């Protein structure tokens, strides 16, 4: 700030982005976008993945420098060169990925975030001040606990508290509720809403959940493919009109209706236990039967053992005790067993868990069958033209956008990597399908296609185990719903009769 300049107005800050254009090389990430956040309002920024929401807020926070356009803070043009400048103006951001240091305590994280960390920290005094600060705040966190030991909800509260502790007056929240139960989400957003209403704070929230926009936001700005697709008062809009602005004219895959008969038991888990990387019990005495023609959904907040459970079923982790049976046979996730029982797997983070990033799309598509005819003769000589032919067929069928079958799969977008895995796993016959957060971070078109494929597999008689952190997805697809908390199944309900509040309560462990 230039000396002699009048200081920014007191109270909540308003931020305007005026005609912002951002280019990364040839790629136009933002094209003449305007965003006006009035001081003391709760503003939502809606858009699909890749619509440019993150790029826009990163321009505001000084991570990126807009190719064209200006950022106005408190009604005045500001050159924000880096995040430190933004912090000095009173702008703060809560990131989608936590920026707390897991191995440190909550108190250490809070003190560390300050711009003026003392050279030698007097912990007794700092803790006293932190206690006094927390007493004024709507939510509480355990100061002396290590961040790695507290729940995702508490971590999110910590992130928000950290910004308030730093006296930010304009807060950007990037998908703040993606790791919270519906109850926690309402609690946190409700408290933030109260702070906005009581003055002193402006909030800009990036989200794709219409429910939260309708319930908490005053105004909304919608982006589509780097362009402004619409804005206005939330009171004047409906979820449908917002969805249309988000998606545009794109056609979505229609999900087939739920048909077919319940078959025999296909996948049986009995008293399964597994430990996590730190050696703690992650999955505890889990028993479950999934029958053919049925989708069983596993709900739960991330980090309650779902990952380890899927890893055991995928053969990536050894079970400590208990057993898994597929059609009555003991199952240990060997390649031969997977093949015999026609197991398919859609793991989370497919690029990491189901692909070899540096290998081509064609090679990745052939992983299940590459050592058999027609891909290989006599089990060792690979027939490259068969790889290519099969890949071209699947690329067309599953609408995988890739330059060629020989492109390394890591060069594809998230949605297209997941489409490729989908093509490989669901392209043939399927008797058991295990899917873990299959739509995480994907756009509407990809989500609709994946949901349709999972439903189609179920209708063909497959037993489907669907692990997801997205309750809406589970309620839409599942026949039966199980809630996982601290490694155990704590609640079970028919999806058609499921009560959202009841499920939310079990997800939070009450």
């Amino acid at each position: 700030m230039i000396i002699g300049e009048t200081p920014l107005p007191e109270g909540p800050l308003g931020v305007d982005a005026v005609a912002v254009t951002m280019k990364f090389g040839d790629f136009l990430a933002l094209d003449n976008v305007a965003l006006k956040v009035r001081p003391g309002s709760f503003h939502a920024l809606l858009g699909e993945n890749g619509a440019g929401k993150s790029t826009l807020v990163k321009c505001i926070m000084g991570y990126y420098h807009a190719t064209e356009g200006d950022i106005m803070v408190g009604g005045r043009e500001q050159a924000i060169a880096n995040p430190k400048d933004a912090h000095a103006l009173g702008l703060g951001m809560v990131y989608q990925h936590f920026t707390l240091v897991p191995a440190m305590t909550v108190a250490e994280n809070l003190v560390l975030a300050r711009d003026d960390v003392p050279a030698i920290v007097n912990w007794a005094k700092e803790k006293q001040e932190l206690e006094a600060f927390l007493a004024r705040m709507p939510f509480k966190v355990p100061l002396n606990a290590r961040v790695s030991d507290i729940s995702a909800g508490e971590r999110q509260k910590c992130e928000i508290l950290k910004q308030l502790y730093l006296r930010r007056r304009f807060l950007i929240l990037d998908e703040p509720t993606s790791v919270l139960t519906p109850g926690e989400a309402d609690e946190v957003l409700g408290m933030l809403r109260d702070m906005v209403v009581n003055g002193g704070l402006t909030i800009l929230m990036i989200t794709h959940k219409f429910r939260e926009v309708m319930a908490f936001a005053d105004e909304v700005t919608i982006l589509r493919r780097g362009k402004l697709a619409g804005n206005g008062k939330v009171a004047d809009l409906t979820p449908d009109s917002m969805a249309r602005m988000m998606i545009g004219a794109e056609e979505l895959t229609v999900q087939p209706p739920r048909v077919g008969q319940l078959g025999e038991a296909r996948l049986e888990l009995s008293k399964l236990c597994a430990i996590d990387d730190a050696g703690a019990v992650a999955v505890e005495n889990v028993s479950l039967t999934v029958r053919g023609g049925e989708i069983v959904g596993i709900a739960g907040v991330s980090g309650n053992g779902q990952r380890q459970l899927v890893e055991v079923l995928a053969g990536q982790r050894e079970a400590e005790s208990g057993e898994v049976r597929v059609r009555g046979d003991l199952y240990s996730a060997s390649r031969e067993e997977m093949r015999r029982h026609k197991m398919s797997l859609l793991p989370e983070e497919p690029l990491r868990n189901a692909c070899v990033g540096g290998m081509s799309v064609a090679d990745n598509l052939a992983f299940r069958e590459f050592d058999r005819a027609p891909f290989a003769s006599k089990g060792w000589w690979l027939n490259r033209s068969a790889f290519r032919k099969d890949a071209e067929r699947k690329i067309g069928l599953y609408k995988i956008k890739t330059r060629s079958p020989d492109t390394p799969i890591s060069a594809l977008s998230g949605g297209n990597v997941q489409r490729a895995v989908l093509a490989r796993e669901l392209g043939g016959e399927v008797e058991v399908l295990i899917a873990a957060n299959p739509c995480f971070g994907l756009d509407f078109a990809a989500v609709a296609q994946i949901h349709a494929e999972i439903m189609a597999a179920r209708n063909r008689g497959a037993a489907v185990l669907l692990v997801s952190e997205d309750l809406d997805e589970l309620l839409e697809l599942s026949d039966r719903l199980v809630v996982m908390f601290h490694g155990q199944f704590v609640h079970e309900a028919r999806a058609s009769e499921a009560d959202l509040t009841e499920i939310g309560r079990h997800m939070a462990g009450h």
Partner: protein
Amino acid sequence: MSDGSLGLWTVPLAVFGGAIRVSTPFLFVSLGECITERSGRINLGLEGTLVMGAMSAYGISYLSGSPWLGVLAAGIAGAMLGALHAGICSLPRVNDIAVGIALMLFGTGLAFYLGKPLIEPTAARLPAIDFGWWSDVPQVRAALRINVLFLIGLALAPILYWAFKTTRWGLLIRTAGESSDAARAMGYSVLAIRLRATMVGGFLSGIGGSFLSLFYPGSWNEGLSSGQGITAVALVIFARWDPMLCLWASLAFGGAAALGPALQSVGVTSGYHLFNAAPYILTLAIMIITCSPKRTLTGAPAELSITR
């Protein structure tokens, strides 16, 4: 007893004295590496830094007549090598392990080249404090002649332990090592933090090297280090990145290394080479007992290239 025949008591006494003597370079290198690794980088080049430090210390001590100037020179040489490591590692797509191995060869090679004329002359050596003045038994007096560098290292371990917890620099180093995203989000430059941590690590390792040439064995030759730098890097993992545990691990390692010579001095000659291997057997055994394929190492900084 005053005639100096202590019988079997000679063995623990010699192990005690040996532990302090042998452990000093391990202590300095492991504390230095502890700082570097807590910032999220592994510097395997500390073997080269150790040898370079030994050579610089010997050369400067010989030229100036002051061993303490030699120690300072060793530290500065180490810090320069640390800066070189950090500088190369801050370039995109550079692997810190590969750079470390290259610098290990570079450091030892450079030290041998520059140190050729230093093999003959004798340099002024570091002093030791006589804590055994009260005894007339020569073995007790020998064991209690404690070098000053060890005492500095002994003080440094708890200071570092405290500093990691309660100073700004300690918190920043840990943040850079545990989550570079978090550090960046707070507006800190991870590369700058790691540069300083690696330089301080190099400084301490260089001082560790000065101990070799200026106290024990107390001369400069090319076989001086024989892998002590690299062993000290392993000790940090063994000590779970905790400065206090680095101290105990160095002492245990030094004590085990002194076992062979101590037993030999009382006439146990069978299995001499086996006893000399004791520190390695000890390390291997503890590693096997405490490691598990199913768990990640506890206490490992999350940003290290081996844990990521």
